[in-house]
């Protein structure tokens, strides 16, 4: 099966700091890849290289190849703005636009890009996909800030889905949420992976074990090991992976 995304020889720097070293990995379509590793290992940087958000930070640099359906995202002539509509992102802390209503938030990615069409139908569809429709269908015009943390995060997911990405990147999406909200997000991921390819960064190993098909372990900027989640958590190849998942360092 051709991978949805293929990373080859990816390197990244913040000024002089070499934060990603020669990372190569395939992401299978319609699957969930979890990226785990201790703090500072480069997993968030890796994620941000997949939708070219890394280069927006002053002093940030990268090198290497990231293919989406065979096309190099870092190639000449690739528009990063357009690319980010194909590879969407959800962040650690829910960040709905505070001055907009729930409906406007979901539609933001479309309306701000000059979409001419029926937004209502799209908003409903995305809120349903994000498992939030029932909770907000009667108050679409209310401010987005009137929602709880878990609901806001699902709103952000709906917003990301509205632009119809192919890949959804999630940077520790549940780390700011309580266990029940977390469980809802994890359940959501199971449903979403039927239509989208998902890459999630998490510092919670058990979450990675619960939601992902493949797991990649990063340490000090290197991809130490990647493989089927079950294998990583029952019988990893590398000693460093073994030490990390059994809690021998962190």
């Amino acid at each position, binding site marked *: 099966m051709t991978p949805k995304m293929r990373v080859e020889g990816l390197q990244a720097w913040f000024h002089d700091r070499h934060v990603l070293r020669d990372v190569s990995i395939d992401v299978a379509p319609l699957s969930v890849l979890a990226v785990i590793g201790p703090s500072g290992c480069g997993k968030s940087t890796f994620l941000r290289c997949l939708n070219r958000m890394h280069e927006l930070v002053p002093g940030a640099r990268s090198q290497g190849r990231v293919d989406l359906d065979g096309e190099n995202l870092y190639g000449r002539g690739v528009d990063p703005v357009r690319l980010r*509509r194909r590879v969407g*992102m959800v962040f650690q802390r829910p960040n709905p636009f505070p001055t907009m209503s729930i409906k406007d938030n979901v539609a933001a990615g479309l309306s701000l890009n000059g979409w001419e069409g029926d937004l209502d139908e799209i908003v409903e569809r995305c809120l349903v996909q994000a498992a939030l429709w029932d909770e907000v269908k009667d108050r679409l015009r209310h401010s987005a800030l009137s929602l709880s943390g878990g609901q806001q995060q699902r709103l952000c997911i709906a917003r990301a889905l509205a632009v119809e990405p192919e890949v959804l990147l999630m940077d520790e999406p549940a780390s700011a949420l309580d266990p029940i909200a977390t469980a809802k997000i994890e359940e959501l991921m199971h449903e979403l992976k039927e239509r989208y390819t998902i890459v999630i960064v998490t510092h919670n190993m058990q979450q990675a074990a619960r939601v992902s098909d493949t797991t990649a372990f990063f340490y000090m900027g290197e991809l130490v090991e990647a493989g089927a989640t079950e294998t990583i958590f029952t019988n990893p190849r590398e000693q460093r992976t073994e030490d990390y998942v059994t809690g021998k360092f962190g």
Partner: protein
Amino acid sequence: MRSLPLRRAVDALVTIACGAMVLLALVPLGSLLWLVVSKGAPGLSLSFFGALPAPVGEPGGGVGNAILGTATMVGLACLVGLPVGIGAGVFLAEKGDGPFGRAVRFTAEVFSGIPSIVIGIVAYGLVVLPMRRFSALAGALALALLMIPTLARTTEELVRLVPGTLREASLALGIAQWKTSLRVVLRTAAGGILTAALLAIARAAGETAPLLFTALNNQYWNFRPDQPTASLTVQIFNYAISPYEDWHQKAWTAALVLLLLVGVLNVGARLALRRSTAGGRA
């Protein structure tokens, strides 16, 4: 460790002291309002708003042309000052970390400290001399030059306050950077920027010195921007320094009118902003 009764006593003392300070701070404001309202109200009438200034001794008369003049010049100043000031502020916040940005910021800081009368002289040199006449345009320019530096600095602070996560969210949706700055960041900071703009406008509407030798004054209706124009502030000045009692009365009333206009502008804009951003449509 202090004992509880002693701590309670200190707490009460400090609370009272703070309260007293607040009252003290309110006294000048309160007395100002009281003075203007009590002295200006007697002369207030509908005709005062619409009539031309009357000569000494004649009853009636008003500051109609001065209101129009102030409105025109402040309006023209806004046309230039608001976009330039807010735009500069946004630029400084988003891309102002390089040498050019530092230069712009430094200039704005210097300018915001220049006395308004000096700004007036600058406008005199830039507009009045080449045009060989006093005009509303010159007055508007002077006011704009006053508005821009503070507006730029405040806008920059406000835009910087918008959390980076909002910018990231917008960029991650595939929205271009300039659109993100304008439609997302600016919109989030809009409330604060509106306040800053209103303050700038209020300041501009209340300036006298720079108008003295740019717009001069005019006793008649004037609809041409290239002619000397009346303004409330200069009119108040003229009325106040005159030796005539009834003109003194007119000065108080005109001052009240100025306060009222600025107040209405303030409240109106705030209401409009609240309706447009709190969960309504864009």
